[in-house]
């Protein structure tokens, strides 16, 4: 059964090595669409995610917020973040569903050195495979949205897998199914884009003149998109304005990789050149004969 899911990319694996089944056309490409103007921050999605995926309950403590956890973790793949923002007289309680956006150009996958630890399916889902994960956390650096989280006990990294077990059999992810106000919707990405357009219009009609779709091009678009009432205040939702698939730390790494290969190559070549030029120096004339 799982073989029917067509694969688009596999971490640290040249496309030539991607299994043959994946040459089939991919089937539907899905996307979540989160309408922030309908989100009431009820944490239904957060809880449904944990329940469906059998994620461990964590000991939390109220830190002066309606937010449950301070941050995502390997056992909390989805977190509702709350932010009170005041612009003049206008109080806005901004509530964002924070979880993997499933980038079309997944920085995590590009950064991953372990073949098969991150797989991108043609339906848009980017999934982590803990069996192959080596726990190096390059994916954490590679993610422009700061999503993957390391697990101390398993020494692997985990994040939202878009309930791939449900999607595979034609169900929607648990967060989508449960969302009480239909703030999270699910469907073919093209349909979701059309719906998003409608939602942006609705928001503009309601007076949110900066309403916008968040489907950043720097990562090739995402498979969880947001419709944001305040498109001009993305930072208040902690949404990066211009995320890219290879953020700065990875640049450093790739530069270093290149320098490294030149350096080691240089080492080998110069040793060889030296040897050819001057040869070995050994006391052979005298070494093997005892002195008279």
């Amino acid at each position, binding site marked *: 059964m799982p073989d029917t899911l067509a694969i688009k990319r596999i*971490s*640290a*694996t040249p496309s030539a090595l991607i299994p043959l089944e994946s040459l089939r056309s991919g089937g539907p490409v899905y996307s979540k669409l989160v309408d922030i103007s309908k989100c009431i921050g009820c944490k239904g999605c957060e809880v449904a995610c944990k329940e469906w995926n059998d994620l461990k309950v964590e000991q939390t403590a109220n830190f002066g917020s309606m937010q449950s956890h301070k941050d995502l973790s390997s056992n909390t793949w989805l977190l509702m973040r709350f932010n009170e923002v005041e612009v003049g007289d206008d109080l806005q309680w901004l509530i964002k569903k924070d979880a993997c956006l499933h980038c079309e150009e997944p920085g995590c996958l590009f950064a991953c*050195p*372990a*073949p098969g*630890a991150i797989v991108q399916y043609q339906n848009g889902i980017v999934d982590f495979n803990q*069996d*192959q*994960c*080596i*726990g*190096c*956390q*390059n994916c*954490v*650096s590679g993610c422009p949205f*700061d999503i993957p989280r*390391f697990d*101390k006990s398993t*020494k692997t990294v985990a994040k939202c897998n878009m309930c791939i077990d449900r999607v595979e059999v034609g169900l929607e992810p648990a967060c989508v199914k449960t969302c009480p106000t239909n703030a999270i919707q699910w469907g073919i990405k093209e349909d979701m884009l059309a719906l998003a357009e409608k939602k942006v219009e609705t928001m503009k009609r309601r007076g949110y003149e900066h309403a916008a779709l968040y489907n950043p091009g720097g990562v090739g678009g995402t498979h969880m998109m947001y419709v944001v009432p305040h498109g001009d205040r993305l930072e208040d939702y902690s949404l990066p304005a211009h995320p890219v698939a290879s953020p700065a*730390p990875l640049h*450093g*790494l790739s530069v*270093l*990789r290149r*320098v*490294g*290969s030149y*350096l*080691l190559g*240089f*080492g*080998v070549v110069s*040793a060889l050149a*030296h*040897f050819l030029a*001057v*040869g*070995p*120096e*050994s*006391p*052979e004339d*005298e*070494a*093997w*004969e*005892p002195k008279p």
Partner: protein
Amino acid sequence: MSPPRLLRFTFFQRAVHWVVGVTFVVLLLTGLAFSYPSLFWLTTLIGGGPAARVLHPQIGAVFAIGLLFMFVLWVRDMFLDAPDRQWLGAIKHYAAHEHDKVPPAGKYNAGQKLFFWVQSLLGVVFVATGLLLWFPESFGPGLLNTMRLLHYAAALSGGLLLILHVYLGTVAYPGTARGMIDGKVTTAWARLHHPRWSGERVEH
């Protein structure tokens, strides 16, 4: 009849050297595997990706201990003296095998001494950054990135040193490796490469 031999390294010194050497090679190979997807197959040498991920820092710990012993064992011999400075001035003659233009070296020539110091410095970087990377959950991603870059940079420098070290110790100067295998070198070798030391240790 075998040629007369001088004891260059004790058993303990050789053991320490090989512990450091072998662990470093394994670390370098697994490290390369982690940073170059095309070399990921190297992890297979020690049981595959996850095993390599678990073993790398543990081997690193052994490496660090070895390095510490190495430092203690050799540090007294590694301070540069006046002839060493002259030796350094004539390093190109040394490389060109112009034997007569190179000031005589003691047990260790100045290049070897510098190698020691650079290696020790890199060792500190390895251990410090490696420790942080071993327990990444305790540190922020920014710090970890810096540490990871430093770790990689040190690894690459170390790799370069390894190439140099192996080349010089084997192909370039035949007979050298024997000192690290059974501990003994020929007097001829010693006279050639470390005349001052061979003078001190004239065989009876």
